[in-house]
């Protein structure tokens, strides 16, 4: 059985001024797969993730999510930048979780989860409320629904942020170092939620320094450095038997 391709990146290039941050990234993630992205600081992991939902424009290559070209319309050989409303529509199918949570501080946990379904997907309030309650229960925070983000621990905030992204019923979830701003004792709860999500069949791309998590959950591990993919393969190939010296050096430094 062949699984459909959920994310396809072909030769993605991106520069900030004269600094070329992505130098032709080509990757493929199949539906239901988890890809973990590793690499030293500044290697372009966040930038690549942000290109996938067009938070950054790209300078070359193509990104397809669920068969759709992201951010551009192709007419013949020419790319036309999409209208912001069309890009917004594409983003609804792609959930994103940030290193610093970015919850809306003026809204309670449940309001954070309901805001986009009600305001963007035009769900009814009661429909969205029900969905939000069950999502908060899923991340173990049913009793914190009425709390404001400032009244929650970092780990709880990150789990609300995951519920908020899931409320849009995305077909792909992007995680940018979701646990690296957390106290060590709070990391486990967030990883548990992500592990459950992976088991439920969600397609995920996770930038992380949690090697244990990558080894256990990932279908593919990709090691990036200086804007290129240095090595990729199964967790045991890349993590236990790295071929490239840069991968070996990096793994030695984080383990």
């Amino acid at each position, binding site marked *: 059985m062949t699984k459909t391709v959920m994310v396809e990146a072909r030769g993605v290039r991106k520069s900030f001024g004269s600094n070329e941050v992505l130098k032709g990234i080509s990757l493929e993630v199949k539906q239901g797969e988890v890809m973990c992205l590793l690499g030293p600081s500044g290697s372009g992991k966040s930038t690549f993730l942000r290109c996938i939902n067009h938070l950054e424009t790209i300078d070359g290559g193509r990104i397809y999510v669920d068969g759709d070209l992201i951010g551009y319309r192709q007419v013949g050989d020419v790319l036309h930048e999409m209208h*912001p*409303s069309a890009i917004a529509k594409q983003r609804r199918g792609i959930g994103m979780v940030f290193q610093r949570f970015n919850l809306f*501080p003026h809204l309670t946990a449940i309001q954070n989860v309901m*805001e*986009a379904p009600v305001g963007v997907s035009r769900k009814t309030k009661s429909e969205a409320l029900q969905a939000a309650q069950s999502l908060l229960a899923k991340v173990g925070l049913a009793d914190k629904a009425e709390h*404001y983000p400032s009244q929650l621990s970092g780990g709880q905030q990150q789990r609300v942020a995951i519920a908020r992204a899931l409320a*849009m019923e995305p077909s792909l979830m992007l995680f940018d170092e979701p646990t690296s701003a957390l106290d060590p004792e709070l990391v486990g709860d967030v990883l548990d939620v992500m592990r459950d999500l992976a088991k439920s069949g969600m397609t995920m791309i996770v930038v992380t320094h949690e090697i244990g998590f990558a080894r256990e959950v990932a279908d593919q591990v990709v090691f990036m450095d200086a804007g290129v993919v240095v090595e990729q393969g199964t967790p045991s190939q890349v993590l236990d038997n790295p071929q490239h010296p840069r991968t070996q050096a990096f793994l030695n430094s984080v383990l």
Partner: protein
Amino acid sequence: MTQPSLNGEHDIVAKPLKHPWRLVFALILVAILGAFIWSLVTAETIDHAMIFKYLFNKDILSGAWLTIVLTALSMLIATILATILAVMKLSQNPLLRIISTGYIEFFRGTPLLLQIVFWGYLGIIYPTLSIGIPFTDIVFVQGQTSQLISAFSAGLIALSLNEAAYAAEIVRAGILSVDSGQAEAAKSLGMSSTYTMRRIVLPQAMRVILPPMGNETISMLKSTSLLASVAVMELYTQAQKISAQNLAQIELLVVAGFWYLVMNTVLSFPQRWLEKRFGRGFGPGVSGRILKVRRDAK
């Protein structure tokens, strides 16, 4: 006397730090204020009965009401305009940025009194006004400027347009105070930029916008008195009109001053309510924190 316990299980029993100088300064202030009030009360030159006679005069009260209406309407119009100008100034579109910057520079750069008189005298510059589609025969409204724009609307326009320029910078500062991660998270959920501004950014910006806007409202309430120059019958104009007849200038200034003070004092209540409303979720502020200090138990 019970000895303060060193055992951690008990509440700390400590005498609060004493501030003797506060009391001294407070007493000096009270003395100065008292002397000033006494000098006014005993002044032979002031007709105290006249003050009380006009304090609740019908024209004075209607003037005060008009002052409230002018303040409320012009602040409302100015706030809406200011939000549009602030968003324009922060936009990617260079044309919008230039228009907004030009507007702000122009209205901040000329005296308010000059602008008020300009709008009041608009009828001299443009005797007739018509609103329609240029280069066609289609006209929606046409007439004498002085009839179309009353003194009241000229005053309202002048105050609103001028205030919008100041408020725009306040709103802009508020928007800039919101962490860029907020707009980013909103984008990633598929929200449009308008929706993000309305539901995510502006409600958070309010926390920064409200205190200076309270100042602006107080300032506006007093600026309405400048409309005396174009004969809008607000509080100060009414007081002037009366004193022109009975020559009790000082007494009517006291009457007007009293009402300005009352109105501004009342304004602080909605201000406090709004600040609390938009402070939700931002943790207890210094004012919200309750410090329980146990007094030395005898």
